[in-house]
């Protein structure tokens, strides 16, 4: 895979990153200390809040000291490698440098994660995800692109040894090509959520559509939603059975013995939120119903998460550090064989392998993750 046009939106030198992290770590360590020192004449509610917060910050001191240690070790080794008069010792130190910086990096990562975790309220590790793809601007070309993306995600999930299955597909009416207006792909496996949650947003494609006769390049979009799969036990907690209206669709005259219907579409409406799910993909009414409830739960959980994020954003001075609602997240340019992720401003130029097996997707994700962490640290610092 050729990677080209690599450039960082905000180049960060290693030092500024470490400085930032140190500042933040100190801030939370101070917070922890002040909580520990607080006198015990607090009321129960405050006490509960205090102990919860203490628990969140619990791992910080240890992680902080290992981080400090590895930083010191690296500095001493570095110094030895340059100033040590003894040749053998100096060479040994130089040889150790690499290992030291690796340790430092890993401690940096753990500390970063701990700090971020102590500020995020819901930690999510679902068993799988639902990817919902919807055709957007661009008519049937957009629907064809839904199909291409669906293939790509399926191939990518195979390459990760995940299992994927198509839960629901809605075809474009009056279209013989099999273009898909809407599809929900279920992908199961560990790490599906951390790897694919960045796919949420608007994906733009620029190419000459199969249907175009004059060779003009069109720009179309599709929308992607990523929702965590909710397991059976947790489903019940997301909605009240009374709030869900179940309808079977397409009434037809006399019914009963008079007619033989083959489709068994169901539609669920969650009345408080107005969320609707229709499902018609299997011949079994029961299975359609189960799938519809599954999708409804995932939608409700996503909504709850989004509400939580919005709530937290309100209380924050800075608005950066949230890539969730960015509009256009990625452009697929066929004539130039280039894929650009606008959030990190990175491009890769092997469009074919990307669409054949998702090659390059994890590369994007790595950078997106780092960028998100940086942005989150930034926003935490700005709040400080």
């Amino acid at each position, binding site marked *: 895979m050729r990677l080209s046009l690599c450039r960082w939106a905000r180049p960060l030198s290693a030092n500024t990153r470490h400085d930032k992290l140190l500042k933040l770590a100190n801030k939370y360590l101070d917070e922890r200390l002040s909580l520990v020192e607080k006198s015990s004449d607090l009321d129960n509610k405050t006490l509960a809040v205090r102990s919860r917060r203490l628990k969140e910050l619990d791992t910080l001191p240890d992680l902080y000291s290992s981080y400090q240690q590895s930083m010191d070790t690296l500095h001493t080794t570095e110094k030895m490698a340059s100033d040590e008069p003894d040749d053998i010792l100096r060479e040994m130190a130089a040889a150790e440098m690499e290992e030291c910086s690796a340790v430092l990096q890993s401690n940096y990562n753990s500390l970063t994660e701990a700090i971020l975790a102590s500020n995020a309220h819901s930690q999510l590790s679902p068993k799988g995800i639902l990817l919902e793809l919807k055709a957007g601007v661009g008519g049937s070309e957009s629907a064809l692109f839904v199909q291409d993306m669906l293939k790509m995600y399926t191939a990518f999930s195979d390459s990760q040894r995940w299992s994927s299955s198509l839960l629901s*597909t*809605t*075809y*474009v*009416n*009056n*279209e*013989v090509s*099999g273009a898909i207006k809407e599809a929900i792909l279920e992908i199961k496996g560990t790490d599906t959520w951390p790897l694919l949650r960045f796919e949420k947003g608007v994906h733009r494609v620029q190419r000459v559509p199969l249907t175009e006769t004059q060779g003009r390049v069109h720009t179309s979009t599709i929308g992607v939603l990523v929702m965590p799969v909710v397991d059976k036990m947790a489903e019940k907690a997301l909605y009240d059975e009374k709030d869900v209206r179940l309808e*079977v669709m*397409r*009434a*037809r*005259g*006399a*019914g*009963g*013995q*008079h*007619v*033989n*219907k*083959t*489709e*068994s579409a169901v539609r669920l409406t969650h009345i408080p939120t107005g969320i609707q799910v229709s499902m*018609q*993909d*299997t*011949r*079994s*009414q*029961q*299975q359609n119903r189960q799938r519809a409830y599954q999708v409804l739960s995932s939608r409700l959980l996503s909504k709850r998460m989004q509400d939580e994020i919005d709530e937290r954003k309100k209380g924050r001075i800075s608005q950066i550090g949230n890539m969730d609602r960015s509009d256009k997240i990625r452009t697929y340019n066929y004539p130039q064989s280039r894929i650009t992720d606008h959030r990190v401003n990175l491009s890769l130029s092997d469009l074919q392998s990307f669409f054949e097996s998702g090659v390059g997707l994890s590369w994007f994700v790595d950078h997106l993750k780092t960028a998100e962490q940086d942005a989150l640290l930034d926003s935490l610092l700005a709040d400080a």
Partner: protein
Amino acid sequence: MVDSFGSADAYNEIRWVRQSCRSGKEAVFKLGQRLSGKPLQFVIGNQPFNSAVIQCIPPTLIPRQETEFWVDKLIARFCDNRQLRVLDLCTGSGCIGVSIAKELHCDSVVVVDSSPKACKLATINARNNLTKEQLERFEVKQMDILSESIDLSSYNVITINPPYITQRDYKTLHSEVRDWEDKDALLAGGDEYGLVFYKRMIYLLKDAFNKQVWMEVGYNQAQLVVKLAKQSGVANVELIEDPFNDRINRVVILHL
């Protein structure tokens, strides 16, 4: 296929047919059958019905979703009961009786049909869907309840989805129904309202007590059946709406 069924249904049907085939050749053959008007369930050979999969062989009536819907309600209502003794009349493919035997705690389930073909299919469907223990308590009987006498006293749940289509409606049925499914399973002889089986049921239930009788009815028959029941002294009658059409009552339940 798109032309005959509309594109959404066509794609679904093509996919379902494909999924039921082992080879491309078989799929082409079956899609051809479908295009020539053979009902999808006969082409594929089965139909999901609640948690069971019911084999479908012409000409025995294909299980309907309206039926599936009320059987699901029945199962939900009796799921905590024990010692159920169930009788399913005009069973056809056996879908109602098999579904109940599969989901509920039954001491016995007896299914009855006048057609030998239906009885054979009901037996197959019981074998395909029930455990060994459930099968031991399951029985298929061939008899004509219109002409033969049957003792209903020992059952506490009775279900029946009898032929209820009138002579007049029968002529207007879609060819997929009329040409492929058993006339005897659809057409109710006797009076012009298609009530012959309900009249017979109410007669048979004259002195019955301590049971619920669930009867599926045609789109314009619920009120007539309720009237018949009231006339014969049944005080407690319940109706269940059709899930696809809220102006229709699909089931009449007699509480005896």
